[in-house]
């Protein structure tokens, strides 16, 4: 289809190691449509970066085929490179002597822009990424957030149709992260198609239209963040009931009044799992009121992608995050 910017079939990459070949990516299929932001979510070693490196021509697939930005990945890598932008994981400290402006212009010129075009593009892009006035600044003097926005600018100088972001906010403080998210959303609003990898659940949730959950070199789920959450587990309504007798009574009332997936009686509260939390609250309260029970608090929480990941893989991402 003309509107598919990525169409991959059976993409596989094996690496040789001391203990024999290891398949980092095991025959994944992938379609990305124009205008989408797709998040590849998974722990370290899940195959996210390897997938990205294959799709950006940096790594030759061991097997499989892919069309990226309208060109065959294996046979026309130069045509693919012209049309994609790639922002790698954050690198080590830059060399002394590298300046923001000249690095961006050189990158644009390697992408085929003329000197004039490159300068014009710099003048337009730098302010858009809050880098205006920093053109003469040494890369060494940039803050973490500025450096990352500079990296994004490198990938955008030639106005690609498709942008790859590898762990765009790893290592950033929360403020800089939120700031970068704003910029990524602005790119999407401008019609850019983006594929990003992350091991932050909030990031996939906040940015992606569609999330591909990767684990052990395979895609174990592919859906919108909301659909994934809805599919895996329902919403949880927490009813604050300090009195144990009232909790027992309430449990019976709740099971009677609405269809529940699960009710858990914990210390001081009753956790009611339902399909749609928002729709369950009113009938719940009416039934409890009729039985003469009044909870001290009531909260509805949607499952997080963390819960999703746990259900899909039996492991929690937070452990991986802490280890990373």
């Amino acid at each position, binding site marked *: 289809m003309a509107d598919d910017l990525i169409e991959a079939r059976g993409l596989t990459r094996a690496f040789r190691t001391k203990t024999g070949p290891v398949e980092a990516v095991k025959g994944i299929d992938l379609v990305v449509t124009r205008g989408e932001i797709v998040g590849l979510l998974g722990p370290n070693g899940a195959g996210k970066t390897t997938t990205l490196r294959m799709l*950006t*021509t*940096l790594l*030759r697939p061991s097997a499989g085929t892919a069309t990226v930005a309208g060109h065959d990945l294996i046979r026309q890598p*130069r*045509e693919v*490179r*012209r049309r*994609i932008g*790639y922002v*790698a*994981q*954050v*690198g*080590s*400290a*830059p*060399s*002394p*002597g*590298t*300046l923001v402006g*000249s*690095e961006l212009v*050189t*990158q644009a*010129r*390697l*992408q*085929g822009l003329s000197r004039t075009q490159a300068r014009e593009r710099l003048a337009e892009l730098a302010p858009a990424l809050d880098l205006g006035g920093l053109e003469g600044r040494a890369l060494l003097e940039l803050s973490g957030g500025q450096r990352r926005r500079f*990296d994004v600018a*490198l*990938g955008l100088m030639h106005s690609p149709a498709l942008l790859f972001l590898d762990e765009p906010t790893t290592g950033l403080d929360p403020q800089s992260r939120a700031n970068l998210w704003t910029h990524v959303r602005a790119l999407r609003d401008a019609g850019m198609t983006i594929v990003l990898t992350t091991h932050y659940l909030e990031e996939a949730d906040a940015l992606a239209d569609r999330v591909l959950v990767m684990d052990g070199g395979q895609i174990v789920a592919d859906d919108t963040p909301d659909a994934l959450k809805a599919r895996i587990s329902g919403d949880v309504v927490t009813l604050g009931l300090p009195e144990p007798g009232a909790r027992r009574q309430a449990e019976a009332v709740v099971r009677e009044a609405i269809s529940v997936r699960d009710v858990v009686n914990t210390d001081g509260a009753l956790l009611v799992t339902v399909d749609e939390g928002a729709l369950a609250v009113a009938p719940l309260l009416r039934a409890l009121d009729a039985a003469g029970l009044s909870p001290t608090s009531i909260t509805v929480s949607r499952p997080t992608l963390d819960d999703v990941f746990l259900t899909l893989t039996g492991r929690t991402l937070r452990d991986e995050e802490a280890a990373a």
Partner: protein
Amino acid sequence: MRTDTFLIFQRQTRIRLRNPVWVFFGLTQPILYLVLFGPLLKNVSGGGLGGPNAWRVFVPGLLLQLAIFTAGFSGFGIIQELREGVIERQRVTPASRTSLILGRTLSDMVTLAVQSTVLVLVALPFGLRASWQGVLSSLALICLLALGISSASYAMGLILKDEDSFAPFIQGVTLPLLLLSGVLLPMSLAPAWLRHTSQVNPLTYVVDASRALFRGDFSDQHVWIGAVVTLALGVLLAYVGSRTFQRQSA
């Protein structure tokens, strides 16, 4: 490809000019040899040494030493660039792979040409008397050799990817090659076994040619043998380097 090569050349040279510490650092060693070791040679006899001509024998050796160290260690730079992500982001451009490495080696070559010129100029007040056409031809040979060595060094940097294994490797290769080419003292002073061993070292022919050129002896057979060896070695190493770069980025 010409544009891309020039862009890379321009970038590397610009960075070096902004941070020229290494250009000076590279020069300190040969200049120390020139100042602290060179004067001893005046009183050594044999092998064309002794008297004022000692400098014509010694300076070409120092030039080769400078070339081997400057170009040989250029791979350090690419290890840093790998970590920084520079290599990767240049690889995702449509620029030809050859130009990415050729631009770098050309920048190294120009740096070496400047360093070599400084070295020759510093040697003049010490008493170097040489044919200037010979010196220029000799510099051209050295630059060609450096082009190949720097390309091969980048290839090794890309393969080893780590300074801790790269430094001993380069040290381990360059030092015996340098000693076996007679950079400090001519091999004509060597015992037979050492002289024979040095004949399998291509650098020996480069130094011999360079010394003949400094004498202005263009008809000496060492000149054309050295030129052919340098050309072959330079082209071969440059080819190996750019092939490795291509394979590594496939």
